[in-house]
């Protein structure tokens, strides 16, 4: 007979689990709201019945081809940005790091623009997101090639900054050389970020990379906690920092690369969300990861619902709205840093 001893649970862990649960419920709720909102009235129940019965009614097509992909991608992209933002802030121990700090976002955007520009996106249906993903993965290889296997954090940041500038310049070059103004405008609109007119194929394309990248990033939670004490202390606690950086760089490339590839550049979510959630997780970077991802999903779904409810047509680009909400928050953050610092 064995005696079952009660395991002491750190209360902070329990609170964070409860927070994740609430955020997951909120995500689910907003998913349903997002599916229910659109430009044409939709009888959801009829659409569901037809969809499940395999009848190609107008309702079921609107649900499966328009509403569902948009809602699912909103959740996926928001999760990706919130998660990676928290991971990058933890890795760099800097509250101003965002998911694109290692150059992945700019590279994914450039990859997609290249697919646009080359005309590939007209020939192959998923060329745009595939180009974005390819850009993100090439960028990761480059960052690692430049910074080296045993690179310190500073070398990684510098490589990321250099890569971002290069990809920004190349994107501008593509715009500059674009054959006609309509192509240029189309690229600019795509870069602003949106979830409109995506299909379930987009969802299937990014689901794998996002799941894999998420697993990689979540596995770094204890190491990120230890990193709170500095690099030497983290290493003395048995964490291999070179491996930690590799996991996070590859994870960020998969997750953020996917997000940018299907939605364009959606700013500020990855920067702002970790700050909103951090105090609720006891400022512990590893524990922040999952709630920050879920809160990202909530915020992005909310923003995407907002652009459809606003009486502005054609609808505002999602990236514009998140930036408009996010930038004032950044001012507030700086003001608060000034007060405490």
């Amino acid at each position: 007979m064995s005696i079952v001893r009660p395991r002491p649970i750190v209360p902070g862990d329990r609170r964070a689990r409860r927070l994740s649960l609430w955020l997951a419920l909120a995500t689910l709720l907003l998913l349903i709201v997002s599916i229910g909102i659109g430009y044409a009235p939709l009888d959801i129940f009829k659409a569901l019945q037809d969809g499940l019965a395999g009848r190609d009614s107008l309702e079921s097509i609107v649900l499966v081809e328009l509403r569902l992909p948009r809602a699912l991608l909103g959740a996926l992209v928001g999760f990706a940005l919130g998660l990676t933002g928290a991971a990058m802030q933890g890795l760099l121990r800097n509250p101003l790091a965002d998911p694109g700090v290692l150059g992945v976002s700019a590279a994914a955007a450039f990859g997609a623009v290249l697919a646009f520009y080359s005309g590939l996106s007209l020939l192959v249906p998923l060329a745009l997101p595939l180009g974005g993903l390819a850009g993100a993965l090439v960028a990761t290889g480059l960052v690692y090639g430049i910074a080296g296997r045993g690179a310190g954090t500073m070398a990684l940041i510098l490589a990321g900054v250099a890569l971002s500038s290069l990809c920004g310049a190349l994107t501008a070059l593509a715009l500059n050389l674009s054959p006609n103004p309509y192509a240029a405008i189309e690229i600019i609109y795509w870069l602003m970020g949106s979830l409109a007119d995506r299909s379930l194929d987009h969802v299937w394309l990014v689901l794998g990379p996002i799941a894999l990248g998420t697993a990689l990033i979540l596995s770094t939670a204890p190491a990120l906690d230890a990193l709170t004490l500095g690099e030497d202390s983290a290493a003395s606690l048995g964490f291999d920092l070179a491996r930690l950086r590799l996991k996070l760089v590859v994870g960020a490339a998969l997750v953020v690369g996917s997000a940018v590839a299907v939605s364009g550049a959606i700013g500020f979510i990855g920067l702002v969300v970790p700050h909103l959630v951090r105090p609720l997780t006891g400022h512990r970077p590893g524990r922040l990861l999952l709630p920050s991802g879920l809160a990202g999903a909530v915020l992005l779904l909310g923003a995407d619902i907002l652009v459809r409810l606003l009486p502005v047509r054609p609808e505002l680009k999602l990236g514009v709205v998140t930036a408009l909400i996010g930038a004032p928050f950044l001012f507030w953050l700086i003001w608060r840093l000034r007060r405490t610092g």
Partner: protein
Amino acid sequence: MRLDARGLSLTRGGHRILDGVDVALRAGEFVAVVGPNGAGKSSLLRLLAGLARPDAGEIACDGVPLGKLPPRTRARSIAYLEQRAAVHWPMRVDEIVALGRLPSRGPLGAATSADAAAIAAAMEMTTTTALAGRRADTLSGGERMRVLLARALAVGAPLLLADEPVAALDPHHQLHVMATLRETARRGAGVMIVLHDLALATRFCDRVVLLAAGRCLADGPPAEVLDDRRLAEAYAVDVLRGSEGGEPWILPWRRLAPAGVVRTGRDDQSKPEETR
């Protein structure tokens, strides 16, 4: 458990930091590494903690080369407290101390009652129990140092390496931490710290390692190592000595002209002070 290092050499940026240092740390010993600024004390401690590889020489932990130990095994065997250690996020004090248990956690990371006991004991020893609910950014420098020492003690490792653990502390807490570390050694751990305070080294430590310019000038009981000649050679200071209740004390009193002082090779310090 014991650490044995032989012939440690380290060069960084063309500058020789350590030059053939032999040093050992045995169970139950409280050892101070002393020496002037730039002598290589912190570098030595980092090498012994397995955080960097020496250019030459070898370190063995119970006969096993340090580099061959899996990182988690090494982390459970050797606890390390870095110099001027910081806390980058304003976590709660008890959660910071709990980070010391990370090497003992399973893959799912659930805390056990052994973890809770180790954390409570470490906080008790460093008198940080009352700070448990405070956020790191509300602590004073000395409080933070004690919390971080508690974090290192919470590892429960048989070897503890601490780089200047009393540097930020007031006299009361300096004495308290030194007594705590000596008590940790009495309970069977090997404790090695970097220290600038020769008086504390003399009073509390079993052994003193005197480094200067990357070389080990002496290694032995404090009374033997910290004699007038060696202190003059290493630091260029003259000291006052005495004893109180049978315990010897030592107080740096006067600077000496640096002629004859062992310095790092790139500086030309041979001129007497008066002619400059």
